[in-house]
C-alpha cells in the first residue's frame, strides 16, 4: 500500500511540474517532463491493476481511465493547456483522494 502512496505522491509531483511548464508555454520542456509523468502514471496504473487493496471495479479505476483518455485527446489536438487543466484539476484531484 505504501508503494501505491509513494507512486501517487510522485505522480502528483510530476503532474505539478509538467503542467507548470505547459502553463508557462515551455512546450518543449513540458513534453520532455511529460515522459516522466506518463511513466509515473503508467507504473501507478500497473500497480493499481495488480494491488489487492484496490477494488478493480471501483470508480477510481474507471475515472482514472476516463480522465487519461480525455487528457490524451487534448494532447492529440496539441491543446497543452486543456491537457494541463485535465491533469491539474481532474487527475491530480483523483490521485489526492487516494492518499
Amino acid at each position, binding site marked *: 500500500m505504501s508503494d501505491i502512496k509513494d507512486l501517487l505522491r510522485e505522480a502528483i509531483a510530476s503532474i505539478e511540474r509538467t503542467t507548470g511548464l505547459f*502553463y508557462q508555454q515551455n512546450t518543449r520542456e513540458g513534453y520532455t517532463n511529460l515522459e516522466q509523468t506518463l511513466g509515473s502514471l503508467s507504473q501507478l496504473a500497473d500497480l493499481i491493476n495488480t494491488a489487492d487493496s484496490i477494488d478493480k471495479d471501483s470508480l477510481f479505476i474507471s475515472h482514472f481511465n476516463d480522465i487519461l483518455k480525455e487528457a490524451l485527446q487534448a494532447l492529440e489536438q496539441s491543446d497543452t*493547456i486543456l491537457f*494541463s487543466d485535465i491533469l491539474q484539476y481532474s487527475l491530480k484531484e483523483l490521485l489526492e483522494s487516494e492518499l
Partner: protein
Amino acid sequence: MDYYEKNMACIKIHRNNLYQSIMNVDVSKTSNRLDAISSIVARDGQLALTIRYQQADYRLNSLFNPAQEANRWVEQYSFHSINNVIAMFGLGNGVFARAIVSHMSKGDTLIIYEPCAELFFHVMHYYDITDLLGNNSIIIAIEDINEFEFHNMIRNKISITNMKNNIKCIHPNYDRIFQESNLHFWREIKDAYHSAILMINTNMLFGRVYLENIFRNLKYLSMSSTIYELRETIPKNIPAIVVAAGPSLSNQLDSLRKAKGKAVIIAVDRILDFLLDSDVVPDLIFSLDPIKPVEYFTRRQDVTIPLLSFLASNNKIYEIHKGKKIICNCSEFIIPFYKEIGKEAPMIMSSGSVATAAFTACVELGFENIILVGQDLAFDGEATHAGGIEEKIATNTEIMVEGICGEMVKSRYDWKEFLTWYEDFLTLNPHINAIDTKDSGAKIKGTKLMTLEEAIDTYSHGDIAFSVNKELLSQTLSIDNIDKLIIYLQGEANQLDLIEDKAKEGIRLCDKLILDNRRNIHSQQIDNNLRKIKKVNTFIEEQKICALMNYYITAVTTQKLAEIYQFKNDIKEDSLNTYLSAKSIYKAIIEAIDIIRPLLSEAIDDIASAI
C-alpha cells in the same frame, strides 16, 4: 451602466488620448478580422475567451480556471529588480495582465500591445477591465487605434538602468494567431534597445567632452543670443530649408542658390565648405557634435554666418567661428541663470543627428513648412556625403530600408535611427509639413516629396528677401547680466566642495555597510546608515551642477548603472551589489568634480576678463 460604458468612462478619465482615438476610429479597419469571438463560462465560473481565426479555433484561457492558469504562467518571470519594464503582446480578457500586475512593484511599468482591436472591443463589452484601464502603471496600445503609443513608450521607458531586467512576454496563443503583429512587436522592442544602446554609447563617448565644451563655451554666452530671440525676427511667410550633407545635395545646388531670400536656409556644419565653395551661402549654420573634427566644419578662418549650436557643441568650432552664436540648448546647469535674467532658457532636445537637431530648431523657430535638402539617409553607391565622400565605418552597420521609389536602398543603422526619428516626430506633430526634395535615398514616411523649386513656389509667400536681423547680430548680454552670470558660476563653484564632501561621506557610509554585510552584522546602525545615504543622495541630486556631472558619471559607470536595479532575491548579495555600485558612483562624482573645478574657474576668469 454596462461593462462597455463603465470601461469607456474609465478610459475617458485615465487615458483621454486613447478615448479620443477610440471615438475617432475607422470601424472598417477594426472589424471582421476574426471569424468569431466568444466568451464561455469556465468550470470555476470565470469567462474564458475563444476565437475562430482562419477557420481554426483558439482558446485564450483555461476552460477550468483562467486566473489560476495565469498565476502559474507568470511564475516564470522574475520581478526581483526595480523599475522593471514589462512588454506584453496581447491583452486578451485581462487575466494574464492582472497576474503580472499582482507581481509588480511601485516604479514598474507594463506596456501591453493588443494586436486585435476587434478582440479589444469584445472584451470591453463583456468584461470589467476598469482595474487595468485605471492603472497608471499600465500602458495599453491597440493596433489600428493607438499602436504608436507602444513604439513611443517602449523607447521612452527603456534605459541603461533597466535594460538587463526587462521582461518580454506573450499572452498564450497570441503569437500563433497574430504572427505578423508579433513580428512587429519584437521589431519595436529590438529597435528600442538599439536606440537605447546608441544613446548609451554616445554618452559614454562624449561624457567628459560634454563637460569640457560646456565650460569652455560659457564665455561666448555674453555675446550670444538664444534661439527664442532669433524666433522673434523670423518672418512667418517663408519656409525653412535644412541642408544636410547627403549625396543628393550635389544635384540641388542651383535650386538652393535660387532659393536664397525666399526661405531661411540652415546648413549643417558638415556641409558648410561644400556650399560656400559652390556659391551657396546659408543664412544659418547648425552645429551639434561635441567632438566633430574642425576640418569637418570649415577650413575657412572668416566664417561669420550665425551659428546655431548647443553649449555642449565642439569648443574648437566655437573658437574658429567668427560670427554670432545662437544658443539652442544651454544645458540644464544654465537654466537658473536665464530665469534670473528674465529670459527663456533655450533647451531644444538633441535628437541624434545634426540634421534632426536642425529640424527641431526650425520647429522651435516657428516654422511649419520645413524643406529637407540632402537628407538622403542612404548610400549613393559607396558615397555617404555630397561631393562623392565615402565615410567608412564598420560594415556590419549596413542595412536595407525602403527608398523613395519603393525599392530597397542601402542605409546604416544610425541613419535608420534618424529616419525613425523623423517619422515619429511627424506622427506626434501633424501640424508640421515636412517636404523632402531628394531624388533618391531613403523614404521618410510623413514627408511630402517634391522638388526644391516646387517647394519654394508652393510655400514661400512674400517679396521680402530674408536675411538674419542685424539688430539680433549685435545683441549681447548687458554688463549687469554678465555680472549675474559670474555670480551664478561662482556660487556653483562654491558648491563643488560641499558636493565633494557629501560624496566622500557617501563612500564612508558605503564602506561601513559593505563591512557589516560581509560580517553578516544586522543592526539598527545599518538602517541609520541607509538613511544617511539617502540624505547624501538627495543633497547631491538637488545641486544644479548635478545635471552636468551626470554626463561624466553615466559615461564612466555604465556597467554599474546597468546593474544598479538588478536583484537576485538574495538579500545579502543584492545589498552588497547595491553598496558597491553606489560607491562607484560616488567616486565618479568626485572625479567629475576634479574635472569641473578648473574648468569652471577658467570660465569665470574668461567671462570676467571679457568685460
